[in-house]
């Protein structure tokens, strides 16, 4: 191309599909073609799509496990420290650290730690809140939250070429292929 400016402001090329089968097939083909910097958009979760796009296994389960363990340890430590060190309290002659009686609060803290890390971990892994994203410049993108399916091959992919990628997307049986600016 004559100037590098238009390419640098290009976000990617977007193909629009009418049904989930076409999107999964197209995503798998694009992956087989060697494209990696791409994203697929669907109005509901499609398990096959995660596989087709080649997404690595999510780190979220590990984050939640760590959150739960931290909650568990924090809960039990708080109880033991508060009732044995900070304010030793003799209740009916029970030991200061009467661990069976500490289980309910330990359990609730475990759940709380795990649930907080599930939600905030999910948001962090998804990069949310994320108020601006170039894909929203696509004129019909609002339909991605209703009944349309989109595949975007991004300009940052090493294999990306305006003409060849455009032509490739047109072979996938899409409804329409559009370029999206950054």
């Amino acid at each position, binding site marked *: 191309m004559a100037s590098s400016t238009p390419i640098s402001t290009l976000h990617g090329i977007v193909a629009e599909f009418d049904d989930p089968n076409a999107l999964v097939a197209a995503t798998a083909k694009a992956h087989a073609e060697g494209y990696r910097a791409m994203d697929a958009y669907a109005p509901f979760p499609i398990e096959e799509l995660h596989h087709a796009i080649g997404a690595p296994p999510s780190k979220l389960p590990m984050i939640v496990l760590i959150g739960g363990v931290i909650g568990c340890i924090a809960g039990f430590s708080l109880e033991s420290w508060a009732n044995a060190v900070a304010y030793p309290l003799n209740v009916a002659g029970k030991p200061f650290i009467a661990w069976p009686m500490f289980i309910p609060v330990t359990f609730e803290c475990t759940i709380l730690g795990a*649930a907080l890390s599930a939600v905030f971990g999910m948001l962090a892994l998804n990069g949310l809140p994320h108020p601006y994203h170039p894909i929203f410049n696509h004129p019909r993108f609002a339909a991605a939250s209703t009944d349309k399916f989109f595949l975007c091959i991004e300009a940052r992919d090493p294999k990306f070429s305006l003409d060849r990628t455009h032509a490739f997307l047109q072979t996938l049986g899409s409804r329409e292929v559009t370029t999206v600016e950054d």
Partner: protein
Amino acid sequence: MADSVQAIPEARGGPALVPVIAPGHSFATVTQKITEVVLRKDTPLGWFLALAPSLAIAGALATALTYLVLTGIGIWGNNQPVGWAFDITNFVWWIGIGHAGTLISAILLLFRQQWRTSINRFAEAMTLAAVACAGIFPLMHTGRPWLAYWLLPYPSTMDLWPNFKSPLVWDVFAVSTYLTVSALFWFTGLIPDLATLRDSSKSKVGRRIYGLLAMGWRNSAYHWQHYEIAYLLLAGLSTPLVVSVHSVVSFDFAVSVLPGWHTTIFPPYFVAGAIYSGFAMVLTLMIPLRAAYGMQDFITMRHIENMAKVMLATGLIVGYGYSLEAFMAWYSGNKYETFMMWNRMTGPYWWSYALLILCNVVTPTFLWSKRVRTSVGALFVISIIVNIGMWLERFVIVVTSLHRDFLPSSWGRFQPTIWDFATYFGTIGMFMTLMLLFVRFLPMISIFEIRTLLPSAKVNQSPGHGH
């Protein structure tokens, strides 16, 4: 897994089930049908007609609480020996109602019960509103609610720490965790639908507010991947949580030594009772709403009948709990236990026990009949009777056990005052107000989950490469 579950009705060769979603819907029509309730400009008159009495009753709550804070809990009928009366009855009643929301959204998700999808959002909102109502009672019962933060462990200038061996402190942790996790679960479920509202709203303010709440959700495959895991894990975490919360609530009673409270059947029997009353409340609210908003396509007779079946099953467990309480009172040979049960059945509050058996044990037997289970009118009436019965159950447990314990010289009676009733009915007004606001401003049915139930959402081929 989901496929095999879907195939079961046909494979059995039994009578065809009513589908969980009426035929003829597409992604666009389900979206349009559910969002239009929220996005329409003109609010239906019926909504205002429902809101006005709800707000008025909630006003009674505001009045009662203001008077309470200015005066003290002496305005209630609580006394010695009945130190816990309407407030704890109402607390347990509301918490129990909330439990159906978590059961529907979490446990039924883990069991892959597809029919949960149409009702989970609404039931979760009901959980939040119910827990908010429940929280008012122990908070106000402290007498000085502005010092309620003393319940929490924090380094105070008094150098005091809570006694973690007390079930009341467990309750603080259980209920506040439950409220937090329920709110997170509900909001997480809402994020994709908020994005739908952002994209479908015609008004600038609507796009702004829903857009802000959706936080830039863009339905990306990567988003959905993490999202689904988070949602499933939250369901897995909420399931033991909901069981623990009502078990801890029952420990408030069971860990004491009072006859009528000190019993090991309490945790399972409280959890079953909670689900029983919760499903009754979902039916009480859902039956009129479904008609008012024409949601019969999504909340079909299959949903209504399944909820009736859950009520029947949990009602039987509750009935078993009552009979075991009576049996143990006799079998233990403990004269205080025996007296407690005899007093409960024939003492000054005999009417509450008789009504409780009538409401909770006799009424649900009608649910054995399929004709009753598929009649919305009959179910509406039964659900209200069950709600009354479950309130009476807690009243019986709290008041009849307390008013005559070991020493006849310390016996007494409890007489509710007008403020007891104003506070109780006031929370019902607050609950209705919150639910009406929810129905008006947020999608009452989970749109993205309904989309996955449509036949066109099924992806047939496997992806082109391994992983």
